[in-house]
């Protein structure tokens, strides 16, 4: 069965005067039509760079796709001319950026901004496009009468809905959402996530949801890829991720989240800090922070090992090179010095 999106061994580096920033390193991801993939990770993990890479929006200079292919509907997006790529952006692949406050042009009405993407990709113009824009607004829960309002007249949550309307106006096959609800209040976030879920079902849009919030992942995603230092260190269908998180980093993430339902006296954070992308650790990039690291972890970079079915993880414990330990979050107890 051919996948909608298949990323193979993708690497993206930024060549800066401070060094070679290895933002994305040899990642592999797949997505089926209508599926939602969660891309989870903290700041600097490489999630946004991956998304920009798919859209071929990585600023060049200083960014550069140094290896890999991105197959969309069978074609390698890295090889098609810019003309064709432009026909795909906004049309077959749409992107929602993180900050709704700055994603909209302040001097254009929301109707004009929705109509713009319609006019670029479809043979509709003028009044017909504006009518369609009004329809899109209704679809995202905003009265069509507001089609001539300016972005500053809307609240944060409503602006994000407008952004969603723009991204879905041409009924794309794939929607990339980069932390679409992080900047919103939690009650508004709930509304927007509901909206996205319903629209996704209605249009059968595949979605790549970039987030750091495992709660959001649990609500919206079918599959999850956990990113750390530019690599996908764990990839699983959602059920398996929550039942059997395998990578020590994933465990650390779960342990860092205060749980609403349990009595936790102390959180169990991951020690240390994200590595410097111009100077990544040798071997396994997570080894300096891993409570289970052994000497071999500094020497050998782990490959993808299968845990079960589609669940794969990059850890030497699963290659039989390090003894498997029953993983619990570890609390250092003492204060650590950074």
């Amino acid at each position, binding site marked *: 069965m051919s996948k909608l999106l298949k990323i193979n061994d993708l690497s993206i580096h930024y060549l800066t005067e401070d060094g070679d920033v290895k933002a994305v390193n040899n990642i592999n991801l797949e997505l089926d039509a209508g599926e939602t993939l969660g891309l989870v990770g903290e700041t600097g993990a490489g999630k946004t760079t991956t998304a920009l890479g798919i859209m071929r929006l990585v600023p060049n200079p200083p960014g550069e796709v140094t290896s890999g292919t991105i197959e969309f509907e069978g074609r390698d997006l890295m090889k098609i001319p810019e003309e064709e790529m432009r026909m795909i952006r906004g049309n077959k692949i749409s992107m929602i950026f993180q900050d709704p406050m700055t994603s909209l042009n302040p001097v254009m009405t929301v109707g004009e901004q929705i109509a713009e993407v319609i006019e670029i990709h479809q043979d509709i113009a003028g009044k017909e496009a504006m009518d369609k824009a009004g329809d899109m607004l209704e679809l995202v829960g905003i009265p069509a009468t507001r089609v001539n309002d300016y972005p500053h007249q809307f609240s944060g949550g409503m602006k994000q809905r407008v952004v969603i309307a723009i991204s879905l106006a041409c009924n794309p096959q794939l929607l990339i959402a980069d932390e679409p609800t992080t900047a919103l209040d939690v009650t508004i976030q709930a509304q927007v996530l509901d909206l996205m879920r319903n629209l996704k079902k209605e249009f059968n849009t595949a979605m790549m949801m970039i987030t*750091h919030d495992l709660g959001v992942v649990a609500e919206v995603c079918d599959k999850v890829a956990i990113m750390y230092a530019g690599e996908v260190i764990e990839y699983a269908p959602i059920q398996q991720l929550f039942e059997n998180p395998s990578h020590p980093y994933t465990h650390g993430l779960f342990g860092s989240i205060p749980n609403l339902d349990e009595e936790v006296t102390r959180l169990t954070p991951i020690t240390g800090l994200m590595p410097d992308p111009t100077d990544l650790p040798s071997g396994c990039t997570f080894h300096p922070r891993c409570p289970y690291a052994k000497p071999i972890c500094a020497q050998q970079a782990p490959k993808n090992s299968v845990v079960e079915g589609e669940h794969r993880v990059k850890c030497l414990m699963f290659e039989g090179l390090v003894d498997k330990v029953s993983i619990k979050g570890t609390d250092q107890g003492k204060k650590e010095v950074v």
Partner: protein
Amino acid sequence: MSSVSNAAKPVDLDKPKAKNKKRSQWAEVWRRLKKNKMAMVGLAIIGAIVFCAIFADVIADYDSVVIKQNLKARMEGPSAEHILGTDEFGRDIFARMVHGARVSLQVGLIAVGLAIGIGGSLGAIAGYYGGRLDNIIMRCMDVFLAIPSILLAIAIVSALGPSLFNLMLAIGISSVPSYARIVRASVLSIRDQEFIEAARAIGANDFRIITKHIIPNALAPVIVQATLGVAGAILSTAGLSFIGMGIQPPAPEWGAMLSGGRQYLRYAAHITAFPGVAIMITILALNLLGDGLRDALDPRLKS
């Protein structure tokens, strides 16, 4: 949320670093400035002019070479003895230009220093306190701005008499409003930032907040404006001396030298040309440096 943590370049704890080494931000600015070739050209030219200004007496003795007239050698072109020729009184042009550099720089730096001192203080107070005080100060500045600065300078010099000091005063005062504006704008943008609230929370008084917290962060646009301001001051000095309101003869000053050579343009153009070119190059160099500084300081401002 993502942008905040990502903004830092993590300090590498594994590389040994002397505890007391201060990695100054100015070093960072300098590093960026070095990359801008045009700015470096400008800096080199300024450096040469500053050198001339400092060592003017070593290069050419004032009394015997600069002001002593030698009517036998009038208006000679460039030669081995006089590198840039002689002027209408037989004085060596190169020697006069070197001393003129000293005058120009003095006026430039002191006039701008005065303007920053007075204008900056007024702007900082207006920006920090706001309200009526802001209104009063800035409306006064507006009145000054309504008068063309060169006319204002002429008026002051006329009132006080032409001398080097009065020239600096005049040009300095006429520049006060623009620095007041710049500093006020800077202060306004900094005043509402959280670290100012933090300073209040730990008990800092207004004076400390303005001097230790606001002004060091407001310097960047002032520095850029100052570089260009020195250029402007030099031009004003030249202009005022040209019309006889500045440095009095026989003291050498580029604008006065321009004026002196006016009548002889036809057959001894070099008397006017050389000081004119000197003015042009200096202004150009200052502008290049100022532009470079703006770019080097800007990323600092953004973060």
